């Protein structure tokens, strides 16, 4: 049972609770979608641990499957954020087509027996670029935002930290797969991802709080 209580699962669970509490009554379905995404993330983590610890099997299939939800949700959320500034629908479709092509190709090449490392790496890069593009659009926009409570800004910050910070782990993925190095009783990859998860879910939780405050204190909250 103790195996299920890891830094990652606790961070995800806290964020799920935050999303349930702060976004459940949000008028915008795009923000509410994040509740389901967090629920799916928690489920994936628990299922991954169960496969590894309970069934003594590789948990790649679970994470490969969750990659689809991750790409879909984050992409769609970025699309929603960009939509406020400009139409990026053609880029959205192009990216989703490329992603699916890569996903299927890598799945076939690996015979579904490995984590889709290349697809995940490319996805990380695209999300980093999307976050940077969001900052660019925000800076180019004439009106200023009260950033300390601007929910999209904190959501993008968390996303950028996570996907940019995981770049090193992605680059050295092949080395780290055989990682037996012990750091605080865990592999270096586990430690890095734990820190990134804490940052990601802290920022996201804060974004949900901002969104809740925006909804509570202003009559229109889109």
């Amino acid at each position, binding site marked *: 049972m103790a195996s299920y209580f890891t830094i990652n699962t606790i961070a995800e669970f806290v964020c799920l609770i935050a999303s349930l509490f702060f976004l459940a009554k949000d008028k915008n379905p795009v923000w509410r979608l994040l509740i389901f995404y967090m629920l799916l993330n928690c489920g994936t983590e628990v299922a991954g641990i169960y496969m590894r610890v309970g069934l003594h099997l590789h948990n790649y299939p679970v994470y490969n499957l969750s990659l689809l939800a991750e790409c879909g949700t984050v992409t769609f959320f970025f699309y929603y954020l960009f939509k406020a500034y400009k139409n990026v629908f053609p880029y959205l479709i192009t990216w989703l087509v490329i992603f699916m092509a890569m996903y299927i190709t890598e799945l076939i090449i690996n015979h579904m027996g490995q984590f889709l490392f290349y697809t995940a790496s490319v996805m990380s890069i695209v999300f980093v670029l999307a976050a940077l593009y969001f900052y660019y659009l925000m800076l180019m926009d004439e009106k200023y935002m009260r950033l300390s409570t601007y929910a999209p800004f904190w959501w993008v910050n968390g996303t950028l930290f996570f996907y940019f*910070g995981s770049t*090193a782990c992605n680059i*050295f993925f092949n*080395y780290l797969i055989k990682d037996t*190095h012990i750091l605080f009783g865990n592999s*270096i990859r586990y430690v890095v991802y734990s*820190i*990134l998860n804490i940052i990601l879910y802290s920022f996201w939780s804060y974004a949900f709080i901002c969104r809740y405050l925006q909804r509570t204190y202003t009559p229109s909250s889109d």
Partner: protein
Amino acid sequence: MQISSTDIYSLVGLTSVIFLIAPLFLILYVISYNRKKRAHAEEKEGLRQSFENELLKTQMEVQEQTLQNVASELHDNIGQLLSLTTITLTSINISNTAKALEKIERAEQLTSRCIKELRQLTRLLYGKELISKGLKTAIGFELEWLNKTEIYQINFKNDNYEADPRQTENDIILFRLFQEIINNVIKHAKATTISVDLEQSEEGTQLIIADNGQGFIIDEKMKETNGMGLHTIQRRAAILGGKATYTSIPGKGTEVIIRIPKKI
């Protein structure tokens, strides 16, 4: 030389730390840029508000000036005419028909003059509307009224001026500047000739007001607190993004040039 696993793990750890610091600085940059944007927006809003306040103040001053003109017209002109009419009518002796007819005719003439003056006064009361017809009309009417006093020889040149409906707010302030300068001429200059030149070019509007009065030493007047409103004139011209320049020679006269750039 082969790199050991430990080195790679250290490298991964170190690179990850760097990859976390980079976004941190990027976010700090975005926050700082946003703050600057906010400060700029607040400054712009402040300027807009001060312009609107100045505009309101100017409109009130134009109105006040109009009322002053009306009061002086009523007192000096219409009042006198009506008094004269009353005296004429009361002095009529009906038994002397020929003389009575002459006096009635005289009273009629005075009443007609009075009506004419009142019509002109009505136009003066609509001073604000005059500005909406253009700066040229408003200045022209004001000078026409001044000309009636027969104290000044007035020259008004406006051939190169075309009214621009987008410049109405600027026109109100510019008209008030004109009134202020003319007031100074009336009060202090002891002039006999007033020349007004209103021009428009690609750059904007230029208003030149010159008199042949006693002139003054600009630096001395500028030091004075009220300074004939010279500071106010300069400040208001600056609000419109323009400039007011004075040239004055004691004993010869004064020239004020106001240049206002076109509102984009």
